[in-house]
């Protein structure tokens, strides 16, 4: 079903575990039918898929955590100051942040719509983690190799405004409602350019499957070369999707206190912050897969490591933009989205079609 | 030399002092004047007409401050206006005496918007009522304080 190196490796482990259990049932309890059931292919495949999902999630989670560390350190260096010094080189800072939220008090303000208030962070973190398993990190290190992988990623990406609006509305606070509405307007405004730039890639490659996109780029050039405008549009729209500085109006520090996150504290806020960085992981991952040739690279290092290096460099670009620019107001965000990015995306689509028709690519 | 956004007034303090003195004989007594200062004692009734003339006639564009003074022994309240003319580079100090038991004076907020909060603060601190002020409510003290803290009979250090 998922033919890749990770799956086979973990298949061996799962089989070994189940054989130990089966040996226990057969020899000690002499319950042969159950023992045989344990070793049957259905159960083994189920356990393997579970373990593969666990491994992929842990890797995705750790990479997102190191994004937080990377952001603090590079942002510090951009601002001529050292970043956090907690632990070795500041690496333990995000564990401290994460663990701290476990012991914080669970505050649910009483005039708040309880069900929605609790559901919003859960929805957000669920969507983000779902995206981790859709993004392949290497040729034989992924959870699911769907033919419509790219489509599913962007379907999940566009689910976020619902959770944010729900959070904003449920917190029953003027600031959060405005933050939620701004978030919805901004994310919808940036769905169109991002999907157009993705359409250009799909026109050239011909399929939604990440594997084929990367192999196409391995045969020909990286898609950033012909579709540079598309990559630029994707980069800017990805910043808006992930609500980072030039476009982080929903969480605008200056006017809306904390935007739609104001009423969340403790563990719920921890989940929301984590989901923000996991969405950053997903955005960088898709950008690398579509335009920077995924795990293509000279093979003295593992392909997975190539993929991670490129992702950290793209995220460093995100941070650099955050360090240099200021926040844009809603009117300008929507103006930029509709009037500037969309024509660029259309031009890019035109180029892609021309290349395809002309037969060069 | 010509300055952007300002009338070409070049009159010194003394010239302005004579102009005011001969125009308002009975209500205004000009005590002292130098090339950029002008000191005068003004009667309550003449204040608004003098201020209107100063603003429109003599290019006094800006109220620097309106300060209240509480003379406990002499049983009088005093309001001191400092009005500046950017064009002539002159600042005028007008002193108005009011009875201490019923201190009332006409507001000049309709002439200069800058005096709005100064008058409101003077009322907040001294209880001097500015007749015709658009919004005479507490400004600096917490809402609901009944006492006027800057009067001499209010001992400082006592909690409101």
């Amino acid at each position: 079903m998922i033919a890749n190196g990770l799956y086979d490796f973990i298949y061996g482990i799962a089989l070994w575990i189940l054989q130990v259990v089966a040996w226990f049932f057969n020899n000690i309890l002499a319950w042969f039918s159950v023992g045989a059931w344990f070793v049957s292919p259905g159960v083994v495949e189920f356990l393997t898929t579970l373990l593969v999902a666990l491994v992929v999630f842990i890797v995705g989670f750790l990479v997102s955590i190191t994004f937080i560390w990377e952001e603090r350190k590079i942002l510090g260096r951009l601002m001529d100051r050292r970043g956090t010094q907690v632990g070795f080189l500041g690496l333990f800072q995000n564990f401290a942040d994460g663990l701290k939220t476990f012991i914080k008090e669970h505050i649910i303000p009483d005039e708040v719509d309880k069900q929605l208030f609790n559901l919003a962070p859960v929805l957000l973190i669920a969507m983000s983690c779902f995206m981790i398993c859709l993004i392949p990190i290497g040729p034989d290190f992924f959870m699911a190799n769907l033919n419509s992988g790219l489509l599913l990623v962007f379907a999940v990406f566009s689910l976020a405004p619902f959770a944010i609006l729900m959070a904003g509305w449920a917190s029953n606070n003027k600031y959060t409602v405005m933050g939620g509405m701004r978030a919805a307007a901004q994310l919808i405004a940036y769905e169109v350019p991002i999907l157009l730039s993705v359409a250009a890639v799909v026109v050239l490659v011909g399929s939604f499957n990440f594997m084929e996109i990367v192999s196409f780029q391995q045969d020909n050039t990286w898609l950033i070369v012909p579709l540079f405008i598309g990559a630029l549009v994707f980069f800017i729209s990805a910043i808006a999707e992930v609500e980072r500085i030039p476009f982080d109006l929903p969480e605008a520090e200056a006017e809306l206190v904390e935007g739609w996150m104001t009423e969340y504290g403790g563990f719920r806020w921890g989940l929301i912050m984590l989901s923000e960085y996991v969405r950053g992981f997903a955005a960088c991952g898709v950008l690398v897969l579509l335009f920077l040739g995924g795990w293509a690279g000279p093979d003295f290092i593992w392909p997975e490591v190539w993929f991670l290096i490129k992702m950290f460099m793209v995220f460093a670009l995100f941070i650099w933009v955050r360090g240099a620019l200021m926040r844009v107001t809603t009117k300008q965000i929507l103006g930029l989205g509709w009037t500037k990015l969309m024509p660029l995306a259309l031009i890019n689509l035109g180029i892609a079609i021309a290349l395809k028709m002309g037969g060069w690519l | 030399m010509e300055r952007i956004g300002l009338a070409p007034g070049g009159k010194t303090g003394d010239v302005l002092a004579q102009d005011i003195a001969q125009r308002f004989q009975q209500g205004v007594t000009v005590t002292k004047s130098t090339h950029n200062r002008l000191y005068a004692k003004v009667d309550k009734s003449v204040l608004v007409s003098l201020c209107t003339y100063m603003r429109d006639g003599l290019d006094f564009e800006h109220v620097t401050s309106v300060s209240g003074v509480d003379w406990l022994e002499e049983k009088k309240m005093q309001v001191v206006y400092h009005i500046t003319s950017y064009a002539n580079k002159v600042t005028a100090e007008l002193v108005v005496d009011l009875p201490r038991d019923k201190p009332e004076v006409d507001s000049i907020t309709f002439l200069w918007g800058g005096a709005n909060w100064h008058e409101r603060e003077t009322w907040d601190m001294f209880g001097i009522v500015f007749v015709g002020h658009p919004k005479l409510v507490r400004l600096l003290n917490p809402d609901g304080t009944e006492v006027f803290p800057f009067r001499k009979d209010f001992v400082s250090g006592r909690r409101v």
Partner: protein
Amino acid sequence: MDMRLAPHAVAMSSAEFLSWSGGVMDQLMRYTGAKKAVDKLTAPIWSWAIRNATVPLHFGIACCALEMAAASGPRFDAERLGMIYRSSPRQCEVLLVNGWVTAKLRPDLRRLYEQMAEPRWVVAMGECAISGGPWYDSHNTVQGVDTFIPVDVYIPGCPPRPEAMIDGFMKLHKKINKEMKGTFLND
């Protein structure tokens, strides 16, 4: 389902079952002493975590607020201790009172303190927050923040230097480490 078929069954909603089973588990853990052992083991981890991620509230009152800003500047970078200023009280641990508190500000400051999530500390920075400072004979100043909020660390100085503020936070870390407030030891 006909309840008469299972006479000993107890009708319980899911929420009730949840709280009932939680109660049983809790008593079991306490009775066997497992809770105390686990808490004693994990307490240092929780206190290390909260020590290295103390987030003060982005809230400046007066001159000490400028020194707080200077402390997060490039020269005395407070972020080395993991201190980032967030502006919503729900997500902060430390309420840094840096300036004189007037009668008009007291109810708001009290509400801000109550909005903060539980393991919270208050640091009174500067003479005005400690005891009213140079405004000792003013009619409108509250003589000391600890008259209406429990204060953990006092940082003297008018205004205290940024190093003094960072030293104040180091003292707060020692206090967190000793008191283990926020960990599950004492509940």
